[in-house]
């Protein structure tokens, strides 16, 4: 390979492609970085950011494309090889071994201890002992240790994936300052973040991914975030999906669910919401902004660390999902496998919530079950060819089963977590209609979606969460993608990027 394209650059990735079966995750991803540069890598959910990162760090192999490091072409086959060629990542989940102590973890990665301790102190962690077990340390500390370990190995390119998520503010500042200071000394950093303020504060350039393509590479300057948002949305801007039957029930304003100042450490900080009867309330947030914790608390799977939840004016607290179900709160998880018995039949899956109420281990009333199940199958047009085993249904049909089971048993408040992820357009429409139908019958729906375009189609209003806090509530009529995207990135009003 005597291509001169990579010459002179510290790292140069060109024309990287990757497909998973029929899905093309990356079409043409490019990224260059030089010594002393901090380059931000941004993209909306599903733009191919994480696939690109995995390829750069050796966790995945690219189908085509080239990566040059210091002018030499590299085929990175594993994280260990990536490390050897000078690229050290800090992932969102710490890659320290929980059952070993700090010293053992350092030995395992061949990290020099003194340099590590220097960086730990520099990053503001005090009182760390080398014989502390990793599993006993808090998440924020682990992320800092991961960063300190990466810095101590003096990498050519440091890759930080959402480094400041789950960190308290004082540590965020230390991290940003340290990373910038390192870059000024010649360190190259790829910085992945959802937070524009941080990107503007420390980065030199921003590379934008959309639908698996690198669509822009801009220097950081005042007003750049507007351009970046436009680039991230691209052609999707004009389209605008057909407005369904939004904003119909909102005047019947009796509040069913009232969430006040809800917090769940470490990610959910302060969210207040009101969910009315017959309303579909959208929840919009970038990945990891606390929405998982919000739904976990409401579904009785996690306990809040602060705030209150009121149901029909009465304070409630759930210690088990059964409590939430009993109270009429029904959770449909984002990962279909979490909510379904994949090896069992559609019939059993639909009937389960009907029958498995606490304290009901008795005989099953077959005729009643059959009637309700048939009714649900008809209403949702579930594919009847594969009734025997849910796992043989398509993703869309599986999703219909997860929602339909609650239709069959009657639902009061439905918590939907990204119900349309990875399913086809036709099924998506059916799910919007289904949700709308439930709302018309008087149910209230909290609807988290990672696809902004869904909000006007499926919701009455949208609550936007950023960094664990509610930042805005937007009526469906005004909820175009750009407005939502700006809010989701914490860019409110005409607020300028801090210089």
């Amino acid at each position, binding site marked *: 390979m005597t291509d001169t394209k990579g010459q002179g650059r510290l790292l140069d990735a060109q024309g990287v492609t990757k497909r998973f079966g029929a899905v093309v995750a990356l079409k043409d991803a490019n990224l260059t970085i030089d010594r002393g540069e901090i380059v931000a890598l941004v993209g909306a959910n599903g733009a191919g950011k994480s696939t690109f990162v995995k390829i750069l760090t050796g*966790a995945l192999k690219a189908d085509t494309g080239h990566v040059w490091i210091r002018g030499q072409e590299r085929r990175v086959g594993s994280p260990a090889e990536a490390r050897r060629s000078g690229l050290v990542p800090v992932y969102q989940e710490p*890659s320290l071994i*929980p*059952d070993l102590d700090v010293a053992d973890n350092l030995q395992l990665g061949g990290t020099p201890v003194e340099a590590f301790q220097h960086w730990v102190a520099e990053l503001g962690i005090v009182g760390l002992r080398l014989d502390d077990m990793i599993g006993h340390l808090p998440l924020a500390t682990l992320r800092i240790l991961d960063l300190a370990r990466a810095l101590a190995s003096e990498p050519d390119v440091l890759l930080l994936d959402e480094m400041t998520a789950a960190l308290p503010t004082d540590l965020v500042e230390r991290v940003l300052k340290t990373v910038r200071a390192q870059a000024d000394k010649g360190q190259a950093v790829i910085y992945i973040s959802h937070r524009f303020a941080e990107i503007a504060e420390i980065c030199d350039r921003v590379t934008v991914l959309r639908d698996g393509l690198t669509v822009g590479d801009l220097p950081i300057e005042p007003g750049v975030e507007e351009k970046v948002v436009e680039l991230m949305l691209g052609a999707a801007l004009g389209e605008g999906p057909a407005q369904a039957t939004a904003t119909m029930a909102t005047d019947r304003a009796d509040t069913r669910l009232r969430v006040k100042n809800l917090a769940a450490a470490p990610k959910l900080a302060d969210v207040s919401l009101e969910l009315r009867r017959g309303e579909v309330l959208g929840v919009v947030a970038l990945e990891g902004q606390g929405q998982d914790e919000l739904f976990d608390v409401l579904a009785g799977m996690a306990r809040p660390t602060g705030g209150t939840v009121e149901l029909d004016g009465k304070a409630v607290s759930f210690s088990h999902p059964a409590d939430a179900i009993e109270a009429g709160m029904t959770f449909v998880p984002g990962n279909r496998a979490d909510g379904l018995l994949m090896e069992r039949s559609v019939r059993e899956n639909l009937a389960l919530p009907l029958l498995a109420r606490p304290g009901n281990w008795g005989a099953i009333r077959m005729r009643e079950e059959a009637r309700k199940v048939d009714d649900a199958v008809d209403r949702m047009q579930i594919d009847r060819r594969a009734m025997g085993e849910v796992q043989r249904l398509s993703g869309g049909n599986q999703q219909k089963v997860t929602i339909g089971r609650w239709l069959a048993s009657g639902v009061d408040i439905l918590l939907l977590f990204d119900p349309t992820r990875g399913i086809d357009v036709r099924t998506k429409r059916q799910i919007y209609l289904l949700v709308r139908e439930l709302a018309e019958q008087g149910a209230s729906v909290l609807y988290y979606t990672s696809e902004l375009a869904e909000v006007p189609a499926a919701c009455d209003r949208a609550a936007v969460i950023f960094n664990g806090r509610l930042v805005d509530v937007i009526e469906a009529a005004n909820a175009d993608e750009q407005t939502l995207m700006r809010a989701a990135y914490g860019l409110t009003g005409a607020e300028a990027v801090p210089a």
Partner: protein
Amino acid sequence: MKRLIAKNGWTLGLVALLIALFIFTRLIQPGFGASGLESLSRATLPFAFATAAMAVVVIAGGIDLSVASMMAVAGVTAAVLMDGASDAMAVPLVLLVLGIGLAMGALNGALIVMTRVPDIVVTLAMLFVWEGVALLILKAPGGAAVPWVREMIVGTVLFPWLPKAFVVLVIALAVVWVPIRRSNLGLSIYAIGSDERAAYRSGIAIGRTRIAAYAICGLFAAMGGLSLTLSTGNGEPIPGPYLMASVAAVVLGGVVLGGGRGALLGPIIAVFILRLVRMDLTLLSVDPNVTTIVEGSIMVAVVMLGGILAVRAGRVKTA
């Protein structure tokens, strides 16, 4: 000092339990002394090696159901080869048997890594395979052991109360395990058992480490089979009750099923505890059927107690 106790709490608890049991044994059997200790050590030796073998793979996040069968293969191989062998030939023969153990274990590991069939299934299948191999080598108990090697584990050394079998156990485990434990291989074994994804991201070769862990397991199993042949003087092709006994001792010894936590010391102490309990119950002429019930109850009770104590300790720490 406090941290040292906290970190090794489980092992210290086991030592205390073992001492209490020794005292109890003296009380019910005032004659229990040097010779009792010697026969206990010799009887425990194969169990201890089986436990060490199991502990290594469990720490690595796996399990090996073929431990007892591999012991049988090693035991009969040693018995057949040593039958009529000269004194001088004994050393290379012992090394050969240990090498066979290493190879059997490595094959188990390689099959798990390459076929991606769950370890419990692969080693269950290999349980039958090695059982068949042992019977092909020796159809009925037979063969012999070179006398001077047999002497290695019979009797006492230095002090009248220090059984040779115990010394052999300590030396064998130390020679194999201490260097590994202090190397990157040892850390990697703990790492893949603790969190495979984090280990992969830390740059550890998962497959190679797993194969190495199973190979070490095979090596310890071969030591167990060899010690069995040495103590009885002939080879036994039918696997003994070592599989379940080793799992029991591993769990009681503080190694978490699922991997990453524990060490070899705890399970070895635990294996002595379990053998001693059995001996005491026999001395008390308790019905053998009741004996197994008592053993099972002790396991659940101790592990449960340990869990409760760990939770307590955790609470104090976070407060």
